[in-house]
């Protein structure tokens, strides 16, 4: 609490100066652009003279990283999310790939952010302590036409600044991945591609931001944006109102609807569905790298890739849905069939008896098939960060910097002051089963719960579960995505009832109040006998 007061004080010192600076530069600027009338700038003082307040809408990976980036400065940052937890929209269900950056057409916004984002992930994963494995990716070609595409991708990648790309012949390809179909002819090898847990990046960013003064509101849907004299004024949610000097719209699939509330420019967001099948980790080393088919104009295709905890993920399909189906996360018979058929063509050894989970995710696609990241020219203070289709995950760290350094500071001419006491580091929940045995043993001596295995399949201890709850997990999925409990081959068959009890105990509620993932996803109806 006292740290926060200090922040306020240090802000007050620079406050007056900043406002004056903004007003002056704005008058000068506005004569050229004439987008904002000059008289508007007279009212450019932030929320009654208090600290500048920025509201970020949407706690997916993009919103979370922007919120964290903002907490590096002396501003009040509020992050609002409609779901019960962080990273539960687009971030929760995708291929989890940190792309190398050869896919995106040079000159596109995607290309600008992707290759750089890939590089930023190393430092980010060290600061935020989430797992990143640079296992590399292979785009495989099965005929001469596809080999030509590989060559184009190579050129494109080099233009985008992707390092160490290489075309491998058949033998070199099979040498790397013996599980590939022997009819493969060549591949494009990109050693910098990697895998991560996207939701964990968002969770880690938010935890770190909270440590640096972020105000987080979960389970609050934004219902209106109030604009006064072409400037953003406040964000209205189901539960309250938040005055805002700047609003950053990171609402994923619903970003167009948020922009409409503000009367700002937007691009339409179309959901593109991707269906996946997850295989248990005892499939072993079916593949050790990310295997892409040769891409088409529409998508990168259906892939085979290892997950961060050693399973194998197959997918996604690419099915364009109408705009009214932004909540359609159903898997389909046709979709799953397509996933099986296409991945088996590349990796014939895929055995569906190892399947443990099927799911679907939606990517926010726009007619331009490119990111839409800019400050509104109509509504001052409203910034769109939308249409974060692939490679949104990879680009997210770059986008966070771009929004804060370029859009807010340069385009909106808001002079943000760096905090002196920003702590860039966040420690993840310790996975005891991954520690050397003697270290684990020492932890157990300190806390016996570190020796109590709750999730048998992924070897998650009770201490990890309790820690996840301390960090904000309120639901079964909250535990699952923070600890990997219930993520394994039994899918919670053994541990779900135990985790229910731990949640209820730690939160001080009855088990019947514990939810799977959303307000009405109840798990228990009542007692058998009173």
């Amino acid at each position, binding site marked *: 609490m006292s740290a926060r007061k200090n922040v306020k004080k240090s802000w007050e010192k620079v406050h007056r100066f900043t406002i004056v600076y903004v007003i002056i530069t704005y008058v000068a600027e506005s004569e050229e652009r004439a987008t904002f009338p000059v008289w508007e700038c007279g009212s450019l003082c932030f929320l009654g003279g208090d600290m500048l307040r920025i509201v970020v809408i949407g706690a997916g990976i993009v919103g979370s990283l922007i919120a964290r980036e903002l907490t590096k400065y002396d501003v009040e940052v509020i992050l609002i999310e409609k779901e019960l937890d962080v990273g539960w929209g687009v971030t929760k269900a995708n291929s989890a790939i940190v792309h190398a950056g050869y896919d995106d057409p040079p000159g596109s916004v995607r290309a600008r952010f992707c290759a750089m984002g890939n590089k930023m992930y190393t430092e980010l994963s060290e600061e935020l302590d989430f797992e990143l494995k640079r296992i590399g990716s292979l785009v495989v070609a099965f005929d001469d036409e596809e080999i030509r595409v590989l060559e184009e991708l190579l050129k494109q990648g080099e233009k985008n600044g992707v390092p160490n790309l290489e075309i491998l012949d058949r033998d070199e390809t099979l040498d790397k991945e013996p599980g590939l179909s022997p009819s493969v002819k060549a591949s494009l090898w990109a050693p910098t591609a990697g895998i991560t847990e996207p939701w964990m990046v968002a969770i880690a960013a938010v935890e770190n931001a909270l440590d640096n003064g972020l105000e987080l509101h979960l389970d609050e849907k934004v219902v209106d944006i109030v604009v006064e004299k072409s400037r953003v004024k406040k964000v209205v949610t189901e539960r309250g109102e938040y005055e805002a000097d700047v609003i950053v719209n990171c609402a994923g699939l619903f970003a167009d609807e948020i922009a409409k509330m503000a009367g700002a420019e937007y691009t339409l967001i179309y959901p593109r569905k991707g269906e996946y*099948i*997850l295989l248990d980790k*005892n499939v072993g080393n079916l593949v050790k790298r990310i295997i892409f088919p040769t891409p088409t104009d529409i998508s990168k295709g259906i892939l085979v890739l290892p997950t961060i905890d050693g399973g194998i993920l197959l997918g996604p399909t690419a099915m364009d849905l109408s705009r009214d189906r932004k*909540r359609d*996360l*159903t*898997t*389909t*018979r046709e*979709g*799953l069939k397509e996933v099986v058929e296409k991945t088996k063509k590349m990796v014939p050894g895929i055995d*569906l*008896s190892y*399947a*443990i*989970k*099927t*799911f679907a995710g939606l990517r926010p696609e726009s007619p331009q098939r490119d990111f839409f990241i800019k400050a509104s020219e109509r509504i001052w203070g409203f910034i769109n960060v939308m249409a974060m289709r692939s490679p949104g995950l990879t680009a997210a760290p770059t986008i966070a910097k771009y929004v804060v350094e370029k859009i807010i500071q340069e385009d909106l001419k808001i002079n943000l002051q760096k905090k002196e006491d920003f702590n860039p580091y966040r420690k993840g929940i310790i996975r005891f*089963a991954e520690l050397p*045995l*003697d270290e*684990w*043993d020492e932890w*157990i*001596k300190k806390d*016996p*719960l570190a*020796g*109590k*295995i709750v999730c*048998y399949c992924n*070897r998650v201890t009770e201490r990890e579960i309790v820690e996840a709850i301390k960090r904000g997990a309120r639901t079964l999925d909250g535990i699952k995505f923070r600890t990997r409990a219930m993520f394994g*081959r*039994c*899918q*919670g*068959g*053994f541990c*779900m*009832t135990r985790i229910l*009890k731990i949640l209820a105990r730690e939160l001080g509620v009855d*088990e*019947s109040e514990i*939810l*799977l*993932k*959303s*307000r*009405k*996803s*109840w*798990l*228990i*109806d*009542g*007692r*058998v*006998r009173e």
Partner: protein
Amino acid sequence: MKNVDVLVIGAGAAGMAAALAAAEQGAKVLLVEREDRTGGILNQCIHNGFGLHYFKKELTGPEYAEIFREKLERSGIDTCMEKFVLEVDVNKKEVIVVSKEGIEKIHPRSLILATGARERPFGSLLIPGDRPSGIYTAGVVQRLINIENRLPGKRALILGSGDIGLIMARRLTLEGMEVVGVVERLPYPGGLLRNVVQCLEDFDIPLLLSSTVVEVKGKERLEEVVVASVDEKYNPIPGTERTFKVDTLVLSVGLIPQVELVSDFVEIDRSSKGFAVSNTGQTSVSWIFAAGNSTVIYDLVDYVTYEGEIAGRSAVRYIDGKDVGKTKVSVEAGENIGILFPKWFDPLEDLTMYIRVRKPIEKGILIVEGALERKVEDLVPSEMIRIRIPKNRINASEKLKVFIKEE
């Protein structure tokens, strides 16, 4: 570091029987269990029907477990709860265990795996639709109701007519939930006939054969389940869909032996997906034995107890250097045999075979080449055949072929 003669992993029916049998032979036995009490899944099986073979009387699961629990207490066997086995080092003959007391290394002269089975999860069925709450495996529902005193919902459909599914249909009905039906892909029920009668027919619960769940609906909690008829290849027949408004879907779609701890170096049987063992319970690694549902999914716990006892006895016999596994004849499945246990015949013990047919057979002759011919009738895959052949009646040097001729 701890040295023991026999280490038993898992204190369910198989593990308790194995530990007791080994201790009776004078061995120093350590029994480790990851749950907080002995008995395994028996503890939540509060229905009766246990013990008819072994005790010649009808017991509930907890009663059956209690008998062994008391024997364990009297036996002086070192029994440790809430201990989880992390690793078996086959070269060092070392077993690493974690518990609230810390990490421990155990050096057994012989190891018995009694790790049981897990339920096939919903995700493995590749059923299209939403991913709401309200979809549970039967074992989870059984635990919720019988142990935790909690009801999972109000209206349920059950997928799979295995024994657990049938028993849960009755349990849910008795506890006040409405069960709208039990759906089975096969044209015949998957569980024991006595359970079909006692659990479904007695309660007027419809059994929908040759049907399957083709879609689950509900953005948050389960709201609807769509069921369709299937053709001979189990493909849904378009136009036969029926929608059931339920908030709960209970899955009884099969058990999978839990072998992952050692499956890198212990042979797995291709048909049962459990540890391949001989009739002494010995696995492909001579000092490692296995028994119970981690070897093959049994119908009756009584069988599990018998096999656990054999494994326990044989493990001690192995330590004593009495040639366990010296001679092994492979037992091979032929015509009409779906699942066959054991994988090898060791002439030190009589041969008790457990067989599941591949498809229903009205009349036939079961032939164990060079050992036995027996008329059989009304065989279904859901009911195991148990056949015991004295060791001196078997003349086989290389392999023992088992098949059923249909008549």
